[in-house]
């Protein structure tokens, strides 16, 4: 994460904020680092990133992702559905058709088709809930407020923590505390009673494993986190493991694999552009997106996000240049060592002409050229729970 924080870490920025669980993390021997404007745990004493990574793949890990922005949009008075219709003008996906308890991955776009942020939209019933990246949340709020009608209320739930419980045993551990939550399927969500109040549980995550994201009021989150890690199946895990897990899962990280200079077609996220809205348009960035889709169809797309499997053990990091023979064809945007595959993996934007499975390329790292092969994403198969 050494460079993940630089965008938020410039001199003169505001002092780092503390998470609601700050002292909880420190009591468990967390090493805290600056990230997205917060002091956040990168790893905990006793294990290390690889141990936390492997535990997540085998059992269940608790991640604190309270830096992320939890926002809500409420319909204008006496105008049901107005929030969904208004939000749909800023996203390439359908929101008006999203049923209560369902969630969808989507993108905030610029007029030129660049990605302002990637986010989750949930129809909670009373409102639309958005979960946005921590480093982008203030810009996202400004963008939403600028484009949404004044009658649509935007609330920032900054007094709520967000925990991610991820791994094949997450559903067993959560069911013990919150009976019924295990019945949710991937990309559905609901309100559950816990303690004297309620928590909002989504079956989603950023590791490729089955798991949940749980929104809890900051006054209750310490007790809730304690109850989760009291289960021997659950261990806390930090940002380091979160990053290596999401890289294996082929999931882009905003600020690295996605920026406002990158469009969703080049980012291989065209699944987030709904078929219907390709025809109807009516969202910011539509013209640019249609041009990129046309480029893709006639083989003139300039760049494409791909996965690269490296030979040997030396990792290639963000910024490393990708070559086909002597020609530079791209740049690594995320890279590291995969604990699961025991070899280095990377995501890169390369000349789309080379973006075919099995293409043999090279990555320049210091004075060496590392052999790399274009590989389908994810590197490690997703294990989402879609129903039994």
């Amino acid at each position, binding site marked *: *994460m*050494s460079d993940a924080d630089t965008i938020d870490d410039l001199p003169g920025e505001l002092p780092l904020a503390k998470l609601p669980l700050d002292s909880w993390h420190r009591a468990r021997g967390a090493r805290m680092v600056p990230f997205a404007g917060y002091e956040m745990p*990168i*790893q905990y004493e006793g294990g*290390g*990133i*690889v141990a936390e*990574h492997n535990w997540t793949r085998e059992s269940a890990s608790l991640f604190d992702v309270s830096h992320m922005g939890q926002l809500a949009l409420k319909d204008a008075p006496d105008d049901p559905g107005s929030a969904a219709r208004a939000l749909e003008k800023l996203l390439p996906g359908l929101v008006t058709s999203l049923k209560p308890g369902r969630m969808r991955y989507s993108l905030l776009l610029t007029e030129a088709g660049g990605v302002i942020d990637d986010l989750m939209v949930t129809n909670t019933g009373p409102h639309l809930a958005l979960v946005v990246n921590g480093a982008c949340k203030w810009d996202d709020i400004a963008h939403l407020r600028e484009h949404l009608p004044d009658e649509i209320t935007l609330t920032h739930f900054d007094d709520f923590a967000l925990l991610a419980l991820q791994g094949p045993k997450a559903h067993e551990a959560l069911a013990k505390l919150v009976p019924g939550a295990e019945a949710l399927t991937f990309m559905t969500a609901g309100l559950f009673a816990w303690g004297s109040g309620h928590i909002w549980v989504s079956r989603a995550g950023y590791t490729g494993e089955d798991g949940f994201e749980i929104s809890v009021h900051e006054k209750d989150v310490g007790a809730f986190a304690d109850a989760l890690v009291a289960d021997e199946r659950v261990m806390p895990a930090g940002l*380091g493991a979160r*990053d*290596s897990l999401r890289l294996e899962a082929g999931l882009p990280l905003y600020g690295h694999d996605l920026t406002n200079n990158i469009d969703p077609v080049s980012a291989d996220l065209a699944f987030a552009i709904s078929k219907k809205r390709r025809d109807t348009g009516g969202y910011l960035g539509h013209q640019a997106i249609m041009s990129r889709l046309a480029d893709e169809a006639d083989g003139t797309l300039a760049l494409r996000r791909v996965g690269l499997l490296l030979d040997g*053990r*030396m*990792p290639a*990091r963000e910024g490393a240049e990708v070559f086909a023979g002597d020609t530079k064809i791209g740049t690594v945007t995320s890279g*590291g*060592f995969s*604990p699961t595959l025991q070899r*280095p993996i990377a995501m890169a934007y390369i000349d789309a002409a080379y973006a075919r499975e099995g293409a043999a390329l090279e990555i320049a790292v*210091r004075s060496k050229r590392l052999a790399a092969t274009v590989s389908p994403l994810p590197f490690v198969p997703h294990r989402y729970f879609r129903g039994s």
Partner: protein
Amino acid sequence: MPRYFTDEHEWIDVEDDTATVGITDYAQEQLGDIVFVELPEVGKALDKGGDAAVVESVKAASDVYAPITGEVNEVNESLEDEPALVNTSPEEDGWFFRMTIGDASELKDLMDEAAYKEFVDGL
């Protein structure tokens, strides 16, 4: 055999006219799980404070600097198959390379064990 330390967390053992170099337990603890070590080539001339090796942890690449001036005459080939030796035995089996001592007077700029311990305690 005397052992010296740098403020970049390298250790250096001196025996006759050869020095063995590695990174300290404190350094490996900070770096976390080490997955690859790029060692210098035998015969490479090193300048005091110049780049000598690179340690790759799961998260990041970190430079290892030459504590003194000299020439590499042996590297620890065990690290090729087992880079985790740097985590499990940083100050013994996880040594990086051996080098000649180009200028023995450079050694007096380095810390001894007590001074290094005090330096780390202050971090």
